[in-house]
């Protein structure tokens, strides 16, 4: 079943086009990743889905409610966590959760069951009486997550939830997301971390307000490009300067980046032979499977 359906969505800020003809569907229990560079329109898209911003045109339905007609009903089915931490710093962990439970009209019985469960799941149970301002960054994110989950939303919308959170907390956070997705919650998450994109069931790449790639992470990687990893052959590395290498390689490749002492290049599908012929003496050449990052770099070059 489609929990979220977006058709031909556009958004203008004055005359500036922020989103251009966006369409996608999300199924029950899917984790839907929105990836893209800063300013691509990720936050704008999420804010339109939550009803904070109004769209310019297009159709959006969430849980079969049209956002134009039943925005208020949709609010009971969605949970939103914005980029900024925005719970109440002087309230304790428990008071913050209870506050949002109260606003959503969650009954005491429901709160007891679900609140405890969420607190244990996130490991915040021991910090119930601590004021939110005294929590660490990772714990704050988890508290914000609980507050958006307390009313059992069918669709969870998260705007770069793990920005600036340490790797361990990030992994915990994603485990929680996966647990909820398995229980049937659809999750829309924007991220700029490519490893997180790999954890999604479906991703879109937004670039300058348009979707330039759409699909699941495995599909997306089957593209008409190959990725090579070059490591220098001992002896040549001092003979030629780095600038020279880059200058000579550049015309042959789509994208070039450094990874430790190695150079990563993306080539067009048919470009490997020519490249090997030209630079085989300079480098050890290894073909590797493309990462999502490679895919996006390639896509944005087009």
């Amino acid at each position, binding site marked *: 079943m489609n929990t979220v359906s977006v058709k031909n969505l556009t958004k203008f800020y004055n005359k500036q086009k922020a989103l251009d003809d966006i369409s996608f569907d999300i199924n029950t229990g899917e984790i839907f990743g929105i990836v893209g560079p800063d300013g691509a329109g990720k936050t704008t898209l999420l804010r339109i889905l939550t009803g904070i911003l109004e769209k310019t045109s297009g159709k959006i339905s969430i849980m079969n409610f049209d956002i134009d007609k039943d925005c208020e009903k949709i609010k009971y089915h969605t949970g939103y966590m914005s980029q900024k931490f925005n719970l109440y710093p002087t309230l304790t962990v428990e008071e913050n959760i209870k506050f949002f439970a109260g*606003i959503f009209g969650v009954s005491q019985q429901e709160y007891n069951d679900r609140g405890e469960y969420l607190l244990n799941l996130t490991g915040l149970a021991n910090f119930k009486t601590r004021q939110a301002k005294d929590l660490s960054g990772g714990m704050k994110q988890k508290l914000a997550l609980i507050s958006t989950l307390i009313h059992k939303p069918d669709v969870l919308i998260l705007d770069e939830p793990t920005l600036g959170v340490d790797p361990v907390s990030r992994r915990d956070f994603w485990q929680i997301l996966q647990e909820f997705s398995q229980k049937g919650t659809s999750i829309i998450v924007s991220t700029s971390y490519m490893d997180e994109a790999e954890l999604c069931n479906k991703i879109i790449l937004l670039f300058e307000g348009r979707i330039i790639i759409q699909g699941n992470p495995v599909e997306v990687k089957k593209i008409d490009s190959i990725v090579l990893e070059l490591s220098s052959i001992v002896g040549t590395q001092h003979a030629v300067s780095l600038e020279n290498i880059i200058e000579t390689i550049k015309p042959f490749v789509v994208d070039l980046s450094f990874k430790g002492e190695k150079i990563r290049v993306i080539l067009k599908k048919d470009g490997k032979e020519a490249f090997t012929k030209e630079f085989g003496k300079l480098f050890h050449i290894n073909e590797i499977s493309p990462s999502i990052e490679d895919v996006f770099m390639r896509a944005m070059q087009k």
Partner: protein
Amino acid sequence: MKTSKSRILKIFQKEILHIIRGRMVPLLVVAPILQMLVFGYVVTTEIKHISIMVVDRSLSSYSRLLISKFSNVEYFDLKSVSNDKNDIQTALTKGDVKCVLSIPEDFEEKIKKGEKTSLQFITDGSNSNVGSAAINYGSIIIYNFSKEIFSDKMRQFGNIIGHIPDITIEERIWFNPELRSTDTMIPGIIGLILIIVTMVVASLSLVKEKEYGNIEQLIVTPIKPYELLLGKILPYIIIGLIDVVFITVAGILMFHVPFRGNILLLLALSLLAIFVNLGVGTLISTISSTQQQAMISAMFFMLPNMLLSGFIFPIKNMPQIIQYITYIMPLRYYVSILRGIFLKGLTFMELLPEVTALFIYALVVSILALKKFKKTVG
């Protein structure tokens, strides 16, 4: 309806916790009392104890009698008596005294002969308030002195020319017979403090939600703008009313301000003023995106209200154009109501014009605020 009420309650509880945890209780309850003390003791519009020097070149019984009149009132402090005219210059220039009474050599002589004599009264005009007060008080004393001498003389001839008609003014000042400025000040202070604890603090608290992004988190919930607004301002309504009671009681106990009216009427009409303040506070919050902006906007509202409400300066003394402007200051009506209830014990019907004005103000501002707030929130 039940969920709506419980949502308002949730916001209310949260706000109360925020006020308590943010250590704002002393600020909202104790600070107003301190403010009242400052205003009560410092801002007094009466001028007393004006320092005076007398240059007595007559050195006679009449001149001594006149000097004693000046030294026996609390309006003047007799600093020195000299008989050298040159002392006037130095004393006034150095600022030792604010005014000088100079008695001519032939003072007694002329009085005894029944001739006209004049005294010189010199004041330091650099502080015009003190200067004009000194002249006022001084002329009254001298006038009374002259009248005394006149009636003494007349009494001597009374047998010959019969009774002399004498018209005297019996001054009666009602409601504040001693013209104590604290009596008019303290009721006015309630108005001022209400502006601070309701308008300023509430608008800051509303803007804070915006500044910290909490509002965004609330927009995505089913809460309605009016529920949010009501829950947010309810604590400040209560604190405002508590402050009214506190200052009233403190004013009565510490400054012996009379309270002749009905306390319930005072609270009911204060509620009206609180609504005006909260409405303006909400409007300010909708046009400000940071607490700093809100603070500055609040000052822009507060200052003219203070100056043009008759709280410190009497409206009657203002230029006509400014007097018209005072009609748009809500504090003007509230200050009249406060003074009316405190000093005159006025009833609701007697205060009807002010109440009507304040009511219309509250209604218009509240509707505007809710409309504007709805727009920014949702």
